């Protein structure tokens, strides 16, 4: 069973080896652009005003770890959306895999393992970027890799379950338009959630991103986390576990009918 999931992982890695150029630009270059524009450009203004005093640290240091969490979310969500839809419907490659001894749970765990690998790669690169911008020394940046991987997977697993129940790709477009993009903007990446209207604040707190942001900020720049770190980890593990179980169940219902 575990070995079957490894075979799925291996196939995905082979794909990536052939198609990595496209994703390298988005996942590797985008954070640098954001840090330059928002962190150094906008950050100078923020720090000149009340920013640093309110945040408790320079804006660039606030933003860097938040961006890592947000990028992890985007990688995790993206991997669970279009490639999964292609496997189910567009190219039906999951049908081909399921004709072999490989089971649905192997597809799900193998795919998540591959997403985990991609997240690890991305977050490690991010640690280097954080060091280059003088935001965090390398060891602290590397300390943030694990929470980033966890945050990304906490998105990936439930979104895989969501994709498994979709009839058309319109649902995916809506997910990004009304889910991922607002989270990116309002879940503590660019400003603390305390700045949100009181009614919206609890909403940010129930999403995995905020917990990821808290953990990563704590790890990378030593900023005190809102809850006990173990509580944040527990929430993320919860999202991952429930998502995994749901994804397997829904894909089984859809593909093995």
């Amino acid at each position, binding site marked *: 069973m575990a070995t079957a999931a490894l075979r799925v992982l291996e*196939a995905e890695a082979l794909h990536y080896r052939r198609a990595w150029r496209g994703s390298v630009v988005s996942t590797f270059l985008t954070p640098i652009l954001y840090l330059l524009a928002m962190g150094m450009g906008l950050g100078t203004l923020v720090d000149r005003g009340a920013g640093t005093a309110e945040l408790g640290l320079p804006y660039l240091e606030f933003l860097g770890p938040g961006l890592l969490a947000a990028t992890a979310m985007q990688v995790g969500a993206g991997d669970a959306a279009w490639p999964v839809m292609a496997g189910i419907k567009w*190219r039906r*490659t999951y049908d081909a895999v399921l*004709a072999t001894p490989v089971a649905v749970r192997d597809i799900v765990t193998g795919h998540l393992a591959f997403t985990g690998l991609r997240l690890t790669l991305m977050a490690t690169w991010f640690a280097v970027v954080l060091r280059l911008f003088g935001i965090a020394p390398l060891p602290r940046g590397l300390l943030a890799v694990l929470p980033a991987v966890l945050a990304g997977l906490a998105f990936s697993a439930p979104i895989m379950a969501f994709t498994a129940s979709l009839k058309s790709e319109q649902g995916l477009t809506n997910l990004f338009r009304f889910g991922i993009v607002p989270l990116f903007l309002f879940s503590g990446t660019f400003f603390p959630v305390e700045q949100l209207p009181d009614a919206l604040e609890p909403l940010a707190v129930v999403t995995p991103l905020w917990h990821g942001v808290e953990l990563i900020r704590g790890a990378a720049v030593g900023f005190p986390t809102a809850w006990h770190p173990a509580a944040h980890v527990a929430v993320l593990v919860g999202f991952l576990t429930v998502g995994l179980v749901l994804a397997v169940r829904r894909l089984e219902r859809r*593909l093995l009918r």
Partner: protein
Amino acid sequence: MTDDPLVAARSLTKRFDGFTAVDGIDFQVRRGEAFGFLGPNGAGKSSTMRMIAAVSPPSDGTLSVLRRDPVTEGPAIRSRLGVVPQEDNLDLELTVHENLVVYGRYYGLPREECRRRADELLAFVQLGDRADAQVESLSGGMKRRLTIARGLVNRPELLLLDEPTTGLDPQARHALWDRLYRLKQQGTTLIITTHYMDEAEQLCDRLVVMDRGRIAAEGSPRELITSHVTRDVIELRFAVGEQDTHVATLDGLADRLEVLPDRILLYTADADVTEAAIASAGVRPEATVIRRATLEDVFLKLTGRTLVD
């Protein structure tokens, strides 16, 4: 022991949300034969295939595949099956060769062995010179042959082919049939679904005629033809609007009459005698075709409908 059927179904049934796709069918597939499910689209052939392939649990009845239960022993069965689905689901992002290697890995074969088998199978399906090509660049016939090669990567005892030549041009169909003959000669058991009667006649040792989820008849192509229809068929076509006026005259000139929207079929043991009788009855059709009866005629007799509409 060896006479045990490779696949055995009793009262096999598949329902989807109140719709019955397969309605209590019985059949057995013997080792080494090419067994066919012939029927129009929607007859329940693909649903039956998916149950045999252990990716769709039966709603009712019993099914054994390679003497195992597909519901509880799916992985064990699938490791000894090859599947060629109706729609190619090859991995378009990988090369021809990589498709086979990756697939072999799903069966747990060592990487080196996968590469060896990929080379061997590409030679077998005459794609050796396209090993490093992208799948997307292949023609429809080549893709189908690659899908067959992929289905053989685990050296299966039983190969399932769902509508193997649908959408292919005649030349590509013959190339594919040729490969399937070769496989059969090598001892692979084949199960084929098709709605082409010529394909069923060419490939199948034995077949069942399926219609609306049920089996209408069973036998070898020859048996089915001799037991359900006459040897010869005369097809008559008339000018527009004239056909109906001749039906009464023609009735009784042959063993059986089949009136289709565009032509009348006369089933007879001796076409020459009947043709003469038609002429002396004063019937002057626009066109007359005399041919041997086919499985299409069997299907028409059994169901009142044509296979391909």
